[in-house]
Each structure stands twice: as structure tokens, then as C-alpha cells.
């Protein structure tokens, strides 16, 4: 498989959950575990660009897949527009749900680049946050949507 642009190959136990492979074998600990029942979304990553709860995915099935985790969405020292927006709008408190929330939002904005507040709320409904009350997460996604629709020109 490819993970965050790097090719990875490993022999794994057939029952190894993808979230454990990512966290334990690859030491990419930004993907979290919150519930075991695919209820909370803390383990959300992208497989071939689509958000998935990696606690409900077998590693062996990701053979050949292109995987993106929170560590792979922006070059070192830079922010993806969603990372910047969560910072600007105070869209995180404890930070535990944040990677999953951002990965889910990346997929959402790809299929719906200009979502309403209602659509954002439904779009992140598989990701629980216990800290923020969601108001500022909605604002963060709105800011990022705007930014991604009209990216600022790179200053040289």
C-alpha cells in the first residue's frame, strides 16, 4: 500500500485492524481510537480519497490501497486549509477527535465544496466531539471551504 505518498509493504496477521497497523506498525499515532464500534470517527482516514473508519477495516484489505492520514495532508511546517481553519476558528479543544474530523471534512469538501451549515453538520455526523459543541468546527469547515474554493496565491 501507499501511505502518505510512501510505499509500505508488510506481512500482517489477517485480523489486524487497519487502525492498529497505522498506529503500532507505522507509528503514525495521529489516528486515534475512541470507540471500537465505528461510532466516534476518531480513527477516520482516507482510503483512495474516501473517508473510512480505520477501526472497521482489515489491514489485509488495504493491499494496494492509497492511504492518507492526518500526518500526510500537508508538508512539514505547513497547514492544509482545514488545519489552518481549525486553528483560526478554535475548532479544537483536546485535539483527540481533530484528526478524524479533519480527514472526514476533506472528503466532504471534495464531494460538496460549498456546504451549508446543515450539510456540514450531517456531513460530520459520524465523528463525535465531546469538547467543542461543534459550533466552531462548523465555522472551521466553512472557512476552509471558502479558502479551498479561492486559494490565495502563493507569495514568492
Amino acid at each position, binding site marked *: 500500500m501507499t501511505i502518505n505518498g510512501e510505499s509500505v509493504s508488510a506481512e500482517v*496477521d*489477517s*485480523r489486524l*485492524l487497519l487502525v492498529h497497523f497505522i498506529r503500532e506498525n507505522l507509528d503514525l499515532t495521529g489516528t486515534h481510537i475512541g470507540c*471500537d*464500534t*465505528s*461510532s466516534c*470517527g476518531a480513527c*477516520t482516514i482516507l482510503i483512495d480519497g*474516501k*473517508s*473510512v*473508519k480505520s*477501526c*472497521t*477495516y*482489515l489491514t*489485509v*484489505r488495504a*493491499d494496494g490501497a492509497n492511504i492518507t492520514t492526518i500526518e500526510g495532508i500537508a508538508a512539514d511546517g505547513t497547514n492544509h486549509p482545514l488545519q489552518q481553519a481549525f486553528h483560526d476558528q478554535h475548532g479544537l479543544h483536546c485535539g483527540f477527535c481533530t484528526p478524524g474530523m479533519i480527514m*472526514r471534512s476533506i*472528503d*466532504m469538501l471534495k*464531494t460538496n465544496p460549498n456546504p451549508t451549515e446543515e450539510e456540514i453538520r*450531517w*456531513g460530520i*455526523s*459520524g*465523528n463525535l466531539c465531546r469538547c467543542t459543541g461543534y459550533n466552531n468546527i462548523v465555522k472551521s469547515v466553512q472557512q476552509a471551504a471558502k479558502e479551498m474554493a479561492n486559494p490565495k496565491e502563493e507569495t514568492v
Partner: protein
Amino acid sequence: MIPAKFDYHKATSVKEAIALSQELGEEAKYMSGGHSLLPMMKLRFATPEHIIDISKIGGLSYIKEEGNLLKIGAMTTQTDLEHSDLLISSYPIFGDAVWLTADPSVRNFGTIGGNIAHGDAANDQPAVMLALRATIVAEGADGEKSIPIDEFFHGFYMTALEPGDILTEIQIPKAKKNSGGAYYKMERKVGDYATAGVAVHIELDDAGVCQEIGIGLTNVSAVPMRLDRGEEVLRGQKVTDELIEQVGQIASEDCEPESDLRGSEAYKRSIVNTITKRMINKALERARN
């Protein structure tokens, strides 16, 4: 929560999957999207010795109209259903149901075939299939078979699929002029299984007389349930508020809910009545437009 050990096998064609299944016997299970089976394995409610991964089988993800039929490949994901222009314009009942199923990340990988083949009356697609009078196409060691939806669900997690059968396609009569469908479920919170859900599909003639109607109920019986008696009331009739009222009443009488955390039996009977009426009205509105 971690599944028990099992052996993993990947099938790249339906034939290969069936051959594997025959070879491995009853302790083998197919896994498509994996979003019904894997959670049960993590809870160790299911401990199959072999998993046959059928998600890599090509050619089973499509939504198309052919002849008199709408054909949906079994591996079509819920997200594909949600974004299909054809379904959005001609079969809005799918949009209603998919929007209320689990959450977007689960829908990215959960397939329509898996949702039906699981045989769970709490899933949303079975009621929709009942309303739309779908035919389930499956392939097994003895070749391809077509199973009318009314013969498909046998019991709690039990279907007409024989061991080794793979659900390959769902066939639905093509949408007629003056037809419409709608689905709604009450849920305790978004993404929850239904407290009670109702799917309605109705076909009118030019005079507004109901030519055909399908009503399927979610999670108010052990097996996904068709509201036969309710359908009979409307079939061949001009649909009036009085008749709708009657059907709602029948729905509350004929469903077989049990009291649980989602509510008492009486509550569920009552909201089945309400949702049935509301969905008939919504389907009618869509049929008339």
C-alpha cells in the same frame, strides 16, 4: 475489541469466490464493505474461520436502467447511491434512506448488497426493497438465481441465500410516470438504527388512482416486513385522507415491534402509524409532480 483469528482469502471474481466458499465450507463468510460483519466479529458475536474478501471483484458496482428495470450492482456503495444523478432524479426514495443510514464514512464502504444480504430488519434498504418490489439476483454453485424480495428474508439474520451464494444485483421495476417513493425513520440520534421506519412506493394512473403500492417497514418485526393489508386498502383506489388514515392504523396493528431502549411497543406502533401516513403523503406528492 479485536476479532478472533481467521484465515483471509481474496476473490477477484464471483466464480473464484464461490469456488473458495465451496472449498472452505460453512465456516467461511463473504466480506464486502465489511461494515456489518466486522463489527460483529470485533464483538465476537461472529467468529468465522475464513473470510473471503469479495470487495475486489470488479464489475459489481453500477446503477443503470436497462429495459424495464433499474439495475444496481450489489457492490455499489451507499455513497454511490447518494450521489447517483439517476437515483436523485427518478428514485428519490434512495436519497431519503441513504441520508439516514449510519454516517458518511460508513456509507463510503457499506454496500447495498451487504445491507440487504445481512438479513437485518433494522437495516434501511430491506424496507425500501420491499416497497420497490425488488428482485434479488444471486450467483451460487448451481448458477444464477433471481429471488423476489418477498421470498428473500427468512428470519433473524437469515435469507434465501444458500451458503456460498453471492448477491450480485438488485433489480427494480423502472420508475413509471406518476410514481413516487419516500422513506423516513425515527432514530434516537443521527446514524442510529430505526426506532421505526417506513418505505412507501406508489404508482398512480392519470386519473390519480393507485395502480400499485409497496409499503415496507424497518425494525418493527424480526424480519423485514411488507404491509400487505395496508397495500390492499390503497391498490385500485383513489387515495383519500380517510384511506391513508386506515393504512396508518393497519400499520400500527400489523407491525410486531418489541419494547426496548428505543421505546415501548405502544410507542413504536404509534409512530409507525404516523410515519406511514406521512410517507404515503410524501410519495403521493412526488408521484403527482
